[in-house]
């Protein structure tokens, strides 16, 4: 390997210095080092990638959960004009669970709401957390912790639907939980829901990170993210709000539901509904990575 020398220091030493400042581990490419240097100089935060929680992070570290190298970043309320491969776009709002001051001396208050990364010519949603007051703070108010706070309910169906798997405290190796809903008849019915109602008053957006997996013969089964009153029985015609989750995504995606006009306590649930010609019994799985609320 060729060693590049700058004022008597080689890049290895420079990378060591960066790692000491940022808490990052592992090798750093030149592009990653440029990002880190930009992070350190004059600002009160840094942005790191990776799929495992950074060890020894500094205050206001933003960790974007990604296996794609971060080449640059932008804080913007609108899509960055000059997007480049690997860029992270942090969407800001007027309030957030992870508010922080971006400068060392003066004040620029940043309210991060969501992160996306430009990969292969498209923006992909990424989960992110901030290290604030010596602990990691999610940008979402998490409604999903370990599965035990959720339960299944077989609602009186317009058909004959059942759930087959009760969520447990055991997650998949990637941190998700698979929720299987068994279809034995047309219509819609059983849901997987939070055991207690959630007060949506201070929040504007319900966020779900999941992918719906169904047999190719059952593409008419559609997972729905539902907000309703707990007394609701046939949820398709009685919810307060719904968002459909396509069954065709091969990766985890972020789905959002506007709840800005819902105040008070509601039941948050995932349900299954048949949308199309009946093709026979099957099992559809909603593989959930995270569910949360955003201000």
């Amino acid at each position, binding site marked *: 390997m060729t060693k590049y020398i700058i004022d008597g220091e080689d890049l290895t030493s420079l990378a060591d210095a960066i790692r000491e400042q940022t808490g990052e581990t592992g090798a750093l490419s030149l592009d990653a080092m440029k990002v880190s240097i930009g992070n350190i100089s004059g600002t009160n935060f840094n942005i790191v990638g990776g799929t495992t929680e950074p060890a020894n992070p500094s205050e206001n570290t933003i960790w974007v959960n990604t296996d794609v190298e971060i080449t640059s970043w932008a804080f913007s309320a609108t899509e960055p004009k000059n997007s480049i491969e690997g860029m992270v776009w942090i*969407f800001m709002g007027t309030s957030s669970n992870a508010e922080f001051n971006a400068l060392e001396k003066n004040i620029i208050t940043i309210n991060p709401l969501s992160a996306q990364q430009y990969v292969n010519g498209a923006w992909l949603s990424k989960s992110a957390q901030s290290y604030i007051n010596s602990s990691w703070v999610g940008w979402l108010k998490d409604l999903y912790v370990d599965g035990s706070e959720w339960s299944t309910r077989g609602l009186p169906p317009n058909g004959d639907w059942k759930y087959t798997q009760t969520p447990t405290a055991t997650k998949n190796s990637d941190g998700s939980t698979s929720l299987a809903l068994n279809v034995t008849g047309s219509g819609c019915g059983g849901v997987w829901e939070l055991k207690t109602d959630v007060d949506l008053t201070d929040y*504007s*957006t319900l966020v779900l990170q999941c992918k719906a997996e169904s047999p190719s013969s059952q593409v008419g089964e559609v997972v729905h993210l539902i907000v309703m009153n707990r007394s609701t029985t046939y949820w*398709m*015609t009685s919810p307060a*709000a719904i968002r459909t989750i396509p069954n065709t995504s091969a990766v985890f995606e972020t789905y959002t539901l506007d709840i800005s006009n819902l105040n008070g306590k509601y039941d948050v649930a995932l349900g299954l509904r048949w949308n199309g010609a009946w093709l026979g019994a099957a099992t559809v799985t909603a593989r959930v990575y995270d569910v949360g609320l955003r201000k």
Partner: protein
Amino acid sequence: MKTIYIDFDFKCHTINDGTMTAVETDFFEGKCDTFIEGYRFVPFGETWTRSDGVVFHGEMITPWKPYDELDAAQRIYERQLIAEYESALAEIEKALGV
């Protein structure tokens, strides 16, 4: 299924003014006009941008008016329907002499 109409902002209407798109959905089965017209229906494949800049993708059906108001209007409508049905039932029973 019920036919409703959505405008350029995806707000729902029960009458088409000639500029709207018709949508078939059973989400509004049994719902009164006041309830329906307080909702936004973003079809699959479409996006809607909220006033704070957050972008939402369809299919999404969610209130754009305070849901409490819409729910209250729907309950009044249902009580009126029940009263009408009971009145009609009473007339039938009277006619039958039961």
